[in-house]
């Protein structure tokens, strides 16, 4: 048996369609169908996945110390960059400008100067949008895309991680 879509003929697709329609009319969230090698899952929301793996560290009684609020809780497995990306839901179609290195984020060329960009600013691919400092070395970050800044995702002088979203841009 060839394991590709060719095994799905006209008739199968019609049958699947009817299953979907029946499911649609019902109040159920999903159907899972498994016939030997063939597996079909139809549903709403995310594909349900069996969770994994290893124990998260969650203090049972008391935390040994306190961390600044910016620090994620130990049990939280989502890394910071993804949290930032999720804020972009408010701007469908917008793209991210990510930090090419980890370091301290500066929104302006020097203290007291106006920021490189603010929300509403138009940028070209080569426009410098920020500086990221690693031990007195300042690295210019280019927009990499033409468009309009719709969101500034980090605060001035904050530590940004490698790959962290700095700005969101609506391409033009």
């Amino acid at each position, binding site marked *: 048996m060839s394991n590709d879509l060719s095994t799905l003929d006209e008739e199968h697709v019609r049958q699947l369609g009817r299953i979907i329609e029946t499911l649609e009319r019902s109040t159920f969230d999903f159907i899972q169908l498994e016939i030997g090698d063939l597996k079909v899952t139809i549903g709403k929301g995310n594909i349900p996945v069996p969770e*994994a*793996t*290893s124990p*998260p*560290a969650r203090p049972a009684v008391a935390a*040994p*110390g306190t*961390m*600044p609020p910016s*620090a*994620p809780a*130990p*049990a939280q*497995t989502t*890394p*910071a*960059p993804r949290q930032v990306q999720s804020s972009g839901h408010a701007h469908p179609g917008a793209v991210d400008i990510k930090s090419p*290195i*980890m*370091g*301290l984020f500066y929104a302006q060329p020097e203290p007291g100067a106006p920021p490189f960009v603010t929300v509403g600013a138009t940028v070209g691919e080569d426009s410098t949008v920020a500086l990221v*400092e*690693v*031990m007195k*070395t300042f690295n210019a970050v280019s927009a990499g895309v033409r468009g309009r800044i719709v969101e500034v995702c980090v605060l001035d002088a*904050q*530590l940004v*991680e*490698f*790959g*962290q979203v700095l700005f969101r841009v609506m391409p033009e």
Partner: protein
Amino acid sequence: MTISRVLIANRGEIALRIIRACQELGIETVLATSEADRDSLPARLADRAICIGPARSAQSYLNHRAIVTAAIGAGADAIHPGYGFLAESPDLAEASASNGITFVGPTADHMRRMGNKIQARLLAREAGVPTLAGSEKIGSPQEALAVAERVGFPVILKAAAGGGGRGMKVVTSARNLEQTFTAASAEAGSAFGDPTLYIERYISNARHIEVQILGDRFGNVVHVGERDCSLQRRHQKIVEEAPAPSIAENLREEIRNAAVKLARNINYENAGTAEFIYDEDEKRFYFLEMNTRIQVEHPVSETISGIDLVQEQFRIADGQPLRVAQPDIVFRGHSIECRINAEIPEDGFRANAGLIEEWAPPVGPNIRIDTHCYAGYRVPIFYDSMLAKLIVYGSTRGEAVQRMKRSLERFVVTGVGTTIPFLHFMMQREEFASGAVTTHLIEDVMPQFSGSSR
């Protein structure tokens, strides 16, 4: 403890090991991770994780500027480098110091002096510690030949900036010397940025014995016993034990004292290891090099001494005097460590990465597992292949060997090939059981293992 938040500049099991030491000391942990390790177990168990760069070590774990920046940005007042990566980098130690951050390890100066193996040999001789007959530094194949003829073949060519088993070549006769010299020098230049070589007499029937040292800022130095790390493949250790089996008690004392003397002579600070080669035929030992960091195999010393070496590292770095004098250190029983690597022993210990499907390490009294792995963990291709360290204790060496054998039998890993079957095979070898462990044992028995596993 004035250290309140540490940046851990490492990954894998040692990152987790350091996190655990910190949890007990009440030190907050910030883990510097590469992009590939962002969701790793240590990243989840640290109080905070910061992605410092892409998967490739050169741009993340080997980037000392990124590490210091991350420490400053996270408000850490200390950096622990673990082992490997930048653990012996004077640059990281110096950059930490000049930014007011405590480096959990020796000073940059200690690292520089011991990092150059030729200088380390000189320091050993100054301290009256025996070294192998050989040269300080050789500049040409001709010079190499003269030295080799003086000390006698076989000889071993080593990179002055090498260490940890890397950059070494054995030469058995004058015929191959010139060619090997040229190749080794070029290799050393590209691998360590320094083509300098030196020659030593090569001991074929040898054991690798090393002494764990702790020194504080006040000139106190103690040893925490010796380890035998003779079981190696490609000059890299895979089984370590403490104490060293089958050596005379007076030699054991001598080797321990030699290490203490060497460390005291340079006012060595923090944890370190003096490595020796032990000539099984002559029953003599010679200094090889000193590692200025915590080592992979530190748990066997912890097990026989009851001392938490990583916690002691923090106390020493914090400026506290050693809590124990030599007579306070009580050694008891025997400990063995096996490195569980994602490697195919039959295929020249070729590394293999992939998804760990099942992961069920043995549990029970006197069994310790140091690992960052779990079922569902994908072993990244970018780093070394060690998955776990399995450490056992026994009242006697025989009991420890037996426990290790049974523990390996119960260690279930599927999805990636591991060294478990090979380690189990080694535990059953008469040579290992009798303590007749030499650096060439693995090579000797490999054909039989490959045969049996078919």
